[in-house]
């Protein structure tokens, strides 16, 4: 009984501690904050988002993001603010610009090249096909 009580008290305390870190005005603000911070990358532990990280700098940056939100800054403005200080490292989704064109459009390029190759093969085969199937021993594959 005592232990259960202790557990409940500890649980309540930890919930209180977590709540004290950042206070949201309403659910909409919290939802926007969550969405924004999961799109931002923690600068210290770079495999975590700003929302997930426990690094001290992530805590500071979360507080800063909330402060900027309350100043009426848009999501893009907040991202720009962080990029100006910490470069595009902080963005999980890099901006579309000449240096990232290959990253953004590279996959489409590869698909196009592949489609071109397949089209070439199909056309060549189609040209051969109307006559007669080639003798088996001439096939390499």
């Amino acid at each position, binding site marked *: 009984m005592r232990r259960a009580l202790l557990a409940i008290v500890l649980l309540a305390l930890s919930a209180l501690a977590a709540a004290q870190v950042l206070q949201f005005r309403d659910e909409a603000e919290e939802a926007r904050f969550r969405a924004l911070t999961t799109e931002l990358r923690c*600068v*210290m532990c*770079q495999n975590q988002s700003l929302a997930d990280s426990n690094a*001290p*700098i992530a805590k*500071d*940056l979360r507080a*800063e993001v909330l402060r900027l939100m309350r100043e009426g800054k848009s999501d893009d403005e907040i991202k720009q603010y962080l*990029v*100006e*200080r*910490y*470069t595009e*490292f902080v963005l999980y989704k890099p901006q579309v610009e000449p240096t990232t064109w290959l990253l953004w459009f590279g996959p489409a390029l590869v698909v196009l090249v592949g489609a071109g190759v397949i089209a070439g093969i199909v056309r060549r085969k189609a040209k051969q096909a109307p006559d007669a199937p080639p003798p088996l021993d001439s096939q*390499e594959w």
Partner: protein
Amino acid sequence: MRRLLPLIAFVALAVLLFAGVRMNSGKDTSAIPSPLLGKPTPAFSLPVLGDPQRRVGNADLRGRPYLLNVWGSWCPTCRDEHPHITALAKSGKVRVIGYDYKDTPEDAQAWLGQFGNPYEFIVADEDGRAALDWGIYGAPESFLVDANGVVVWKHVGAIDDTVIREQIEPKLMQMGAAR
């Protein structure tokens, strides 16, 4: 020839990947390059450690190049770095200014008492708010700023003799030539 095509494709891919690995080996890929390079230092005004009435900002630091060394008494790597920073400061090659990051004045003073204080002075950023403008995300970090207040170099992690010899000193030479 057609039979060799897959092998050629495989070798080409292997060479590409190997080159990628080689290009990044030995580099700290987790270090974020500073967007401040070539730009003026961010506007700041911070109290001086041990003399909180006195505040220092960008304008006060113009005129001579300086190395801003970010440290904290909570930072173990800073202890390893400290002898090298001390040697650099004693050499007189550049002003060395401390940036006490997310620290209490008491802890900072105790740390300096133990390891020595080579800094011309130290600005204290207790809550780490000003550090965000500098793009600081840990300690140690160091910035080299020229006489016009432009950031010319940033290093994330400990400075050692190799970094001083191969990176800081050439930058100082360039600045000397530019003046």
